[in-house]
């Protein structure tokens, strides 16, 4: 008893593990049980049992419940689908004026609203796209095709690439200085010279619609949540789930509501980008000190003035970091939304990956990454920039950037005009380098891939086989071998030991949702892949982070590398691994490891950095060696922060595993991908996405609770 009192947690963990393994050994895999069987599939088998709930019949194989629970939530995807169908086709039919046919038409309200939103988004995208690339659709929207035929000069000409490049460089100079201006100029020249101008501008036009709209909605909802506890409480679960929801999963229901194309992509991007904006607005507004608010009130501010003149300007930095997050999410979605027909670099990347043309994929991927890095740096520079003080400045000093941009517009236009005379073959390279007329390194990279395969095929194959047969398959078998009851006992028990009864019930409810869905086996496969990635990523991240922290320069270098890698859209990581390992599970796992190592490394460095200098000095004065200081003082104190890194690593790994379905895995992601091409896939896609989000939330809850307790224990809260 004394031992139990001395090491209570140890005994609790021991008890939990003993029960878990006892259950695993006691419950056999039922004979005839086939692993990874989606029980809600539309297979009619007389051996299946059925139940009907809310008018929906669900068929399933009634195995021993200790082994696998029946899919009592199997009705949910069907119900969501029917709900969507009802809303779109039957609910509240109303008369609407159809300007195309000049008559009233009866349409359900939701369908009409979705069509109106679609039309509005399409107009905005086309408008920006035509400013950048030229076109007539915008003019036609306000006039008619006859008008455009009669006056051909009204066509929007589009901006020459030289003007956009100069504009980007001038803006970067204004925000950060020479360094960023040179980088901006080089990026623009790169995308133009490599013939990626048109797709890049298509992507940019889509981001220029999605990002501002996400900012406006995110900011408004953030302010509302700050003002009203009810709104905050209502938004909290959505924000929580959206943090860990794979972006893929949102595609499917949105596709049902809004169809496919750029407009649907913008709406989906907004759905994904608004939550971080809300969160950062809320954090920013909460961070405003009461003294500032008090001062505002004392000055006689109305509520509106207090918000717009005091709170938002004070929280400016956090809000602008929100803008930065919005832009990053937009880029990440630019590729993913190519699955539902969004044009641009993402579409080209997807096509190239589909054709296994690694060279082309690399070119498109590099372009996306460069633009993402550029916009990331520009938005961060904007966030950190102090408001200019207009003292006794001359007109030129105040407006020099505008003047320079005006000059660039004139020079660019003249160059484009000269180019139209100079280049006789029909392509004006000073206006736009066409997609297939730029420099291409695709052949070089493709030959490189061939060379790698020819030279290292034996070793790659041997490594691949070893990894799959010796590591992955046994690990997968172990996960799939876990009976449902044992898994639930383990998760709930862990929740209880770490965070008490409340945490136990939370994680228990989340696990139960997945266990009662028809995709428990697939969820186990997803978890196994993510776990494998997280273990390796954390090992690498902890070691690299700890080693880099020993020196100021290596610390800054590694943080810079993490910054850059973090801006790459997740899809880009698949390109190099496909180059090396082809279309295999190994590729996905290596992409997971590379992607998930970033937060592990970053949080390790930041955790070690957060250890107070005073403790370093105290330790040195006590005569400890460098190693002793690291292991006895720094790492224990930094560990709670590093665990937050593990949390992020899990989310990153889950995202990448789901994206990995594109090159063939058999987890939840594969089903989400299938749902994309399924007529009734909306409900399935959403439910699967919630399952993935819940896996992330289970770990999130456990880790965050542990970190909070540990920080309190260490007195570093």
């Amino acid at each position, binding site marked *: *008893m004394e031992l*139990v*009192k001395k090491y*209570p947690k140890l*005994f*609790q963990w021991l*008890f*939990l593990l003993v*029960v878990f393994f006892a*259950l695993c050994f006691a419950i056999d895999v*039922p*004979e*005839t049980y086939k692993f990874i069987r989606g029980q809600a599939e539309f297979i009619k*088998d*007389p*051996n299946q*049992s059925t139940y009907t709930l809310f008018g929906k019949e669900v068929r399933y*194989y*009634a*195995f*021993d*419940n*200790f082994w696998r*629970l*029946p899919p*009592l939530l199997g009705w949910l995807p069907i119900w969501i689908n029917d709900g969507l169908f009802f809303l779109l086709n039957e609910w509240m039919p109303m008369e609407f004026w159809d300007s195309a046919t000049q008559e009233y038409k009866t349409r359900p309200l939701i369908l009409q609203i979705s069509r109106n939103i679609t039309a509005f988004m399409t107009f905005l995208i086309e408008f920006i796209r035509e400013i950048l690339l030229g076109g007539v659709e915008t003019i036609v929207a306000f006039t008619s095709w006859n008008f455009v035929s009669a006056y051909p000069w009204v066509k929007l000409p589009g901006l020459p690439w030289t003007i956009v490049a100069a504009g980007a460089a001038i803006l970067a100079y204004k925000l950060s200085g020479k360094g960023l201006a040179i980088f901006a100029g080089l990026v623009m020249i790169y995308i133009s010279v490599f013939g990626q101008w048109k797709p890049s501008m298509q992507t940019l036009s889509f981001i220029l619609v999605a990002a501002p709209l996400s900012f406006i909605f995110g900011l408004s909802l953030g302010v509302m949540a700050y003002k009203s506890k009810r709104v905050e409480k209502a938004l909290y679960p959505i924000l929580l789930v959206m943090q860990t929801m794979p972006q893929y999963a949102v595609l499917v229901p949105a596709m049902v509501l809004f169809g496919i194309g750029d407009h649907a992509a913008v709406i989906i991007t907004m759905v994904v980008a608004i939550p971080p904006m809300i969160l950062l607005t809320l954090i920013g507004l909460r961070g405003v000190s009461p003294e500032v608010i008090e001062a505002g009130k004392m000055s006689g501010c109305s509520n509106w003035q207090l918000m717009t003149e005091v709170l938002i300007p004070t929280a400016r930095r956090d809000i602008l970091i929100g803008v930065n997050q919005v832009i990053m999410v937009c880029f990440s979605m630019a590729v993913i939304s190519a699955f539902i027909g969004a044009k641009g670099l993402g579409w080209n990347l997807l096509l190239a990956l589909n054709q296994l043309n690694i060279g082309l994929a690399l070119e498109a991927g590099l372009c996306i990454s460069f633009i993402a890095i550029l916009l990331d740096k520009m938005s961060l520079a904007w966030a950190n920039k102090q408001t200019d003080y207009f003292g006794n400045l001359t007109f030129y000093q105040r407006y020099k950037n505008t003047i320079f941009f005006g000059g660039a517009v004139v020079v660019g236009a003249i160059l484009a005009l000269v180019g139209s005379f100079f280049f006789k073959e029909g392509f004006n390279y000073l206006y736009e380098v066409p997609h297939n007329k730029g420099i291409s390194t695709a052949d070089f990279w493709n030959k490189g891939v061939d060379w790698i395969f020819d030279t290292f095929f034996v070793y790659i194959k041997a490594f691949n086989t070893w990894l799959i047969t010796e590591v992955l398959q046994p690990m997968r078998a172990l996960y799939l071998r876990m009976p*449902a*009851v044992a898994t*639930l*006992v383990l998760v*709930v*028990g862990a929740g*209880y*030991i770490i965070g008490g*009864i409340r945490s*136990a019930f939370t994680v*228990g409810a989340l696990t139960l949702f997945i266990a009662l869905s028809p995709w428990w086996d697939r969820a186990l496969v997803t978890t196994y892949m993510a776990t494998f990635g997280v273990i390796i990523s954390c090992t690498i991240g902890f070691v690299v982070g700890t080693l880099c922290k020993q020196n100021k320069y290596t610390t800054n270098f590694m943080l810079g590398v993490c910054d850059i890698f973090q801006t790459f859209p997740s899809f880009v990581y698949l390109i190099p691994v496909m180059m090396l390992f082809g279309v295999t599970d190994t590729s996905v796992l290596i992409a997971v490891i590379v992607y998930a190592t970033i937060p592990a490394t970053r949080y390790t460095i930041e955790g070690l950095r957060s250890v107070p200098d005073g403790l370093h000095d105290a330790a040195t004065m006590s005569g400890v060696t460098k190693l002793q200081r690291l292991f006895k003082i720094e790492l224990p104190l930094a560990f709670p922060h590093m665990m937050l890194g593990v949390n992020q690593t899990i989310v990153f790994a889950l995202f990448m595993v789901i994206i990995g379905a594109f090159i063939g895995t058999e987890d939840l992601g594969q089903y989400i991908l299938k749902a994309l091409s399924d007529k009734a896939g909306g409900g399935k896609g959403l439910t699967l996405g919630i399952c993935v989000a819940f896996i992330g939330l289970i770990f999130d809850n456990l880790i965050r609770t542990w970190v909070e307790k540990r920080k309190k224990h260490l007195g570093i809260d």
Partner: protein
Amino acid sequence: MIIHKYLNKIKLLPEPVRQIGGLVTLTVFIILSFAILNIYWGGGDELIRKMKIEEERIEKERKVNEVISSLPSGIVVFYDGTDHYKLSNKQYEAVCKITKLIPQRAIMAAHFLNYKAYELYTINGNKINDTFVKWDKDKNKCFAGYTVSGSNVGVNETVAVSGEVLSFLSTGIDTRVYFIKNF
């Protein structure tokens, strides 16, 4: 009152003991919940038995398909002297075991030598009762047959016709008896 007393006693226990007690209670609660759920939703052994039968059926079907796909479409025979595909001994046995159908053509041919059966067959609207195709282990031969029954001028009669199967018809989907030697 007693419950209150026990609750107080639990509250007085040391924190570590209470925690481990809570964990044990939670574990037992989960396992019991599963046990209760199993009563209502679990199929258990019955399902496994049914699925085993199903698996056997699928396995048989797979074997049948394997045999069928190895045969050319058309008439397949067991003896020499024709242009038709000649079955090996193994194939002959396999085809015999998977064949279920005796089409009208084979029946009509057998009726050439069994007038009574022919008469009953035509009077009662070309109806036949039981059919069988079976492998005779002792003779290493395939036998097929059927019974025809019905009323013949007010008298209920039953005639059994059977004989050695000399050829089959392979359709690419299934196999059928093609010729019954009932003489």
